[in-house]
């Protein structure tokens, strides 16, 4: 344990230093691609907090991404906010939305919660399309031109680190273990004195902040958003597949899943654009059939690895 810490911490420091230095030397494409990986780590890690730990599968997590994107974009475009402040506001807005939705919906049992979340996303998409004055409706919303990709790279990277660090802190705490009891047996957890509703709600709020900030950052980086670009079901599906692949309920599973699948996706996308959707379907089926716990979950169970992986 101590030995592994002596290896892991310096290794992590080296990786982070390399990623921090990368924009000075990397190509424009490389920086953009890495920025995308950061975003996916933040999204997958956040989904893992609610769904990987408590087993309450959120099929509408992109709603928080979209809510953050629109909040950030509106504040930048209409109120002249700076993008870092708008990004924070995106996180706050997503968290408030999670409170509004989680309060009634987390009382529902697993499958009903999943469907309710799916519905939430469609409702939000319809709402932003309707309020044209504020959101531009179906025409989308353009932000003032600004080249901030490099700065956003660092902020998105910090967000990915923060989400992963938070996951570590939660999973190694009794709060995290209690979240897992909800996944394992919610009735027994209640009978043992665990206030499962409050635990789920806290996890849900925490899981919304990261996507909210990521949404606002993405909106700023791309300079233009429209309902179909920030509320697509595909983003939720991608988060889910990344976590399932890497290992749900683990600290590093979402990181591994996000990085691995993004790289695979880029390669396939470039070479065989038409097979690209097929690939994701195949991965889902393969993961569910062959290793339902994902890569790290499988290793953890087989080799009795600590919860810190």
């Amino acid at each position, binding site marked *: 344990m101590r030995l592994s810490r002596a290896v892991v911490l310096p290794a992590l420091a080296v990786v982070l230093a390399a990623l921090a230095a990368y924009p000075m030397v990397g190509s424009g494409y490389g920086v953009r691609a890495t920025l995308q990986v950061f975003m996916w780590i933040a999204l997958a890690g956040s989904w893992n907090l609610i769904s990987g730990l408590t087993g309450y599968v959120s099929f509408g997590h992109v709603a928080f991404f979209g809510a953050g994107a629109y909040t950030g974009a509106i504040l930048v475009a209409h109120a002249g906010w700076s993008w870092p402040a708008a990004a924070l506001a995106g996180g706050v807005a997503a968290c408030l939305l999670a409170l509004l939705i989680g309060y009634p919906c987390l009382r529902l049992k697993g499958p009903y919660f999943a469907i309710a979340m799916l519905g939430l996303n469609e409702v939000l998409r319809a709402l932003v399309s309707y309020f044209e004055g504020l959101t531009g409706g179906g025409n989308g919303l353009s932000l003032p031109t600004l080249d901030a990709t490099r700065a956003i790279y660092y902020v998105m990277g910090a967000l990915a680190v923060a989400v992963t660090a938070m996951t570590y802190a939660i999973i190694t705490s*009794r709060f995290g*273990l*209690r979240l*897992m*009891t909800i*996944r*394992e*047996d919610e*009735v*027994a*957890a*209640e*009978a*043992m*004195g*665990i*206030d*499962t509703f409050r635990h789920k709600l806290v996890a849900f709020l925490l899981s919304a902040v990261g996507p909210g900030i990521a949404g606002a950052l993405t909106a700023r980086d791309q300079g233009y958003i429209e309902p179909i670009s920030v509320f697509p079901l595909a983003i939720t599906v991608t988060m889910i597949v990344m976590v399932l692949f890497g290992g749900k309920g683990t600290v590093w599973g979402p990181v591994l899943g996000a990085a691995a699948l993004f790289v695979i996706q880029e390669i396939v996308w470039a070479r065989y654009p038409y097979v690209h959707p097929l690939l994701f379907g195949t991965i889902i089926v393969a993961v569910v059939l062959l290793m339902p716990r994902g890569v790290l979950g499988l290793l953890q*169970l087989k080799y*009795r690895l600590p919860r810190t992986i």
Partner: protein
Amino acid sequence: MAVLAVESVTKSFGGVAAVHGVSFALEAGRIYGLIGPNGSGKTTLFNCITGLEPIDAGRVRFKDERIDGLKPWRVARRGIGRTFQMIRVFPELTALENLLVVTRGPRDQAERRGREMLAFVKLEGLAGEYAGNLSYGQQKLVEFVRVLMTDPTLILLDEPAAGVNRTLLNDLLAAVARLRDEGRTILLVEHDMKVVMGLCETVFVLDHGEKIAEGPPGLIQADERVIEAYFGA
């Protein structure tokens, strides 16, 4: 003063009264048995006491305060712990983690206490093993000490003897007697009559959701209505 008072509790599912007008009271520091044929409402009654099933009528009072209508976790926090007929450990948590999740306060203290509890049921060597990998009997012990970790005043045990070998059972029964000596109250549902007769000071008998007898085990065994309920007229 009674620790637990169940007053005319009724619970129906659809048109079927699973528990009908049942009343009894439990005094502190005693062991009680709840027996009855299959489907007589024993587990439903447990669920009504612990808040897992909302009751249709009647009252449940614990330490003189009403607890019917409270959420299960609030009932548990008041000091009522239970085990389940079908074991409900958290399979993908380790044996020690199964105990840690119910604790509050400093973690190192909680871990020490958890290890003591596992040693108490001779499972200290399996602290880091996933509960789902343990044998049936071991899981039962983990579930038993998990209840004790919450330091309950009243402990409801749903068939503690079922599927447990003799040696283990004797340890378990000795532990239950010790809990009683500490001043805790125990109510157990059990089919093994030897266990009930040897351990319980008072036995309640349920049949078709109604309490048909109450008294010391010796008298209960000779009660005609009880014999009829079990063996038919």
